[in-house]
């Protein structure tokens, strides 16, 4: 009897196991291996652009130089990769006192001016007998020629023939140093809230003066002003190597309340629709103690201005390749605020020293972009600095800062970003699309253009070429490849066959119609 029971239990277990395996295999055998699935009926977010920041380096671009032309063409025309978002940095004035000259960065620094920023505010004019607000509200205390290189370069990019600039965002990493508690553009201590409440209005005046100059002085259309950058970070202490300002959630929310009022007044006076960009969160980590992204959003939600906010800008630094971190953030955002808030990814860079001339960081970039679009639901995607000047991978092109005729050397990151930005326009929709039963390292991001063409950015991070099975229903195919030997090069234009071979370590844009 015991033996029979044992046999019976064994058979039941074997059958259960077989059934599980059958079900598991059955669910994935709907498609052949490496099959590109495209479902045009499932539309997600509309894309609002690709960009990069002009912080630090743009102030060294000599006006009217060959460098200026080359950089503007490479970044903001279709001759280059056609970026559409220009991020101008409103400096905190660290140039005045040379705050970041070999300060905490050691051999990393090449130029004294490496991370210092110019400010249009004339510090020498600061009148101690008056309040900070009176000083910063006084137009006579501003001289925008101090940051002329950066301002003129922005104008060049936006006004050049064939410019692809659609959105200008003015962003600040720190208030002006005369407004901070530490008297510097970073905190004396780590996590020091460096903007005293009594200077909120003065800082607003400072930002509005810049906005006014760009709009009315340069005649450019500004989409938004981002007054706060990565507020949850420490931004203080001895190892500070760049401008930054820490804010507690309540402080951030209270400051935005003041700033939203200033912005409304500006818009009313100038007939503009400049928005507040909130809040360039340093990450989207819900669970990391230092993440705190949800706390900042929650603090803002208590104010009236929150009703006007429909987008949260975040940086992908915390968990750049984590699907879970992104999806938890989106899940929590939806649980708390429904579909009110969408997301823009406004900064990331490859934080590895050295100069990656190969595809390593470019493939990483493509993975981050893929996950930001697909898992975070990002509407736009921006890289940190457009150019880097030395042995670090924070730019997408290499250029000797300050040089008149310095060669603009695109990295593979530049070309891979082009795999997206040159083909996906503002208004294009991301649609359901992925590689089913994909080999490790194969993934796709799929967009649909208004004219019906499908853009597939296909990435193969593996070391072997992989034949991708293409869906039926498309007659023509063109392909642009970035790989070790190719820089966004057109490699195919013809009939859409049944398969497309993705080379090892490559990013390829397929245009299907």
């Amino acid at each position, binding site marked *: 009897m015991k033996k029979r029971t044992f046999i019976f239990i064994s058979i039941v277990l074997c059958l259960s196991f077989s059934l599980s395996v059958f079900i598991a295999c059955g669910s994935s055998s709907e498609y052949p291996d490496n099959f590109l699935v495209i479902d045009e009926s499932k539309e997600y977010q509309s894309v609002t652009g690709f960009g990069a920041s002009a912080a630090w380096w743009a102030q060294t671009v000599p006006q009217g130089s060959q460098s200026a032309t080359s950089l503007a063409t490479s970044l903001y025309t279709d001759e280059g990769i056609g970026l559409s978002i220009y991020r101008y940095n409103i400096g905190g004035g660290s140039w005045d006192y040379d705050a970041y000259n070999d300060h905490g960065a050691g051999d990393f620094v090449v130029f004294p001016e490496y991370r210092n920023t110019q400010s249009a505010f004339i510090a020498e004019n600061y009148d101690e007998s008056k309040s900070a607000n009176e000083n910063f509200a006084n137009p006579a205390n501003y001289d925008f020629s101090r940051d002329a290189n950066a301002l003129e370069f922005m104008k060049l990019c936006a006004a050049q023939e064939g410019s692809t600039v659609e959105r200008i965002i003015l962003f600040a990493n720190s208030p002006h140093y005369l407004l901070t508690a530490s008297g510097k553009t970073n905190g004396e201590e780590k996590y020091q809230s460096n903007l005293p409440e009594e200077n909120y209005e003065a800082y607003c005046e400072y930002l509005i003066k810049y906005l006014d100059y760009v709009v009315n002085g340069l005649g450019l259309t500004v989409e938004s002003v981002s007054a706060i950058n990565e507020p949850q970070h420490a931004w203080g202490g001895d190892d500070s190597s760049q401008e930054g300002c820490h804010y507690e959630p309540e402080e951030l929310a209270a400051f935005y309340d003041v700033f939203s009022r200033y912005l409304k007044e500006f818009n009313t006076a100038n007939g503009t629709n400049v928005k507040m960009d909130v809040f360039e969160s340093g990450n989207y980590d819900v669970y990391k103690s230092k993440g705190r992204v949800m706390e900042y959003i929650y603090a803002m939600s208590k104010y009236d201005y929150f009703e006007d906010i429909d987008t949260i800008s975040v940086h992908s630094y915390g968990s750049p390749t984590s699907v879970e971190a992104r999806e938890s953030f989106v*899940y929590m955002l939806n649980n*708390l605020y429904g579909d009110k808030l969408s997301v823009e990814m406004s900064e990331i860079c490859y934080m590895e020293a050295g100069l990656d001339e190969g595809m390593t960081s470019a493939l990483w970039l493509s993975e981050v972009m893929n996950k930001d679009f697909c898992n975070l639901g990002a509407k736009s995607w921006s890289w940190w600095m457009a150019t880097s000047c030395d042995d670090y991978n924070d730019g997408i092109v290499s250029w000797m800062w300050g040089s008149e005729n310095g060669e603009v050397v695109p990295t593979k990151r530049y070309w891979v970003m082009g795999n997206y930005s040159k083909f996906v326009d503002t208004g294009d929709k991301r649609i359901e699309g992925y590689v089913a039963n994909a080999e490790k390292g194969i993934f796709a991001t799929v967009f649909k253009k208004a004219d019906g063409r499908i853009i597939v950015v296909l990435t193969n991070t593996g070391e072997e070429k992989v034949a991708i099975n293409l869906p039926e229903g498309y007659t023509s195919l063109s392909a642009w490849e970035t790989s070790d030997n190719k820089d966004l090069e057109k490699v195919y234009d013809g009939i859409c066959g049944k398969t497309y071979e993705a080379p090892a370590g490559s990013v390829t844009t397929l245009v299907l119609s």
Partner: protein
Amino acid sequence: MSRTPLPFFLVCVIILTYGRDNAVRGERKMKNVFEKPTLLQLLLGIAAGCFALVAFGLFFADAVGDKGGDGLPAFKIAFDVMIDGLHFNARAFIAYFIPLLCVAVVLPFKEKKVYYAAAFLLLAASVAIFLMREIYLSKYDAEIADMYRKGGVRLAVPAIIAGVFCLISSALSLLRGLAGVKFAVKKEQVVPGECTNENTVEERQ
């Protein structure tokens, strides 16, 4: 129930503790604390210890999470690096440290109370692990904690498993304590005095 030989680890402990020369003396001392377990006792002890060990191992897996997929491991709740430095959450640590302590139930203690105590502690640990979301949220103000609750933070699957394993381990520890206990059976007592033996009565007569 057949008797098992003295477990190998017991001999090792004696030799390591007292050295080869004093092994015999040491063994005598150890015998005051340990006993030779029956096979059932041994199996129950090992099973209880294993469940407790796995529950402790889940200290390094997510304790809280959400439907989105991300989460926070229990050890990061216990040792939380916050803005003003490292914060130690004693409740989170103790909840998972108890199962590690209770792995000792694999040892064949003579004193059964050890197993009852382990069963109680494991029960308490399981309750604490099941409350790990609240333990995690206790670092926030009530308002922020409520925001996270509404946001969807919940107990993660590994924590649920850890809690269940603690419960199982608790039950097994209890059984381990009860295994081999000879319960006294109440017998009907014969009232002395009046003799009911007819023969004796007859003899008296």
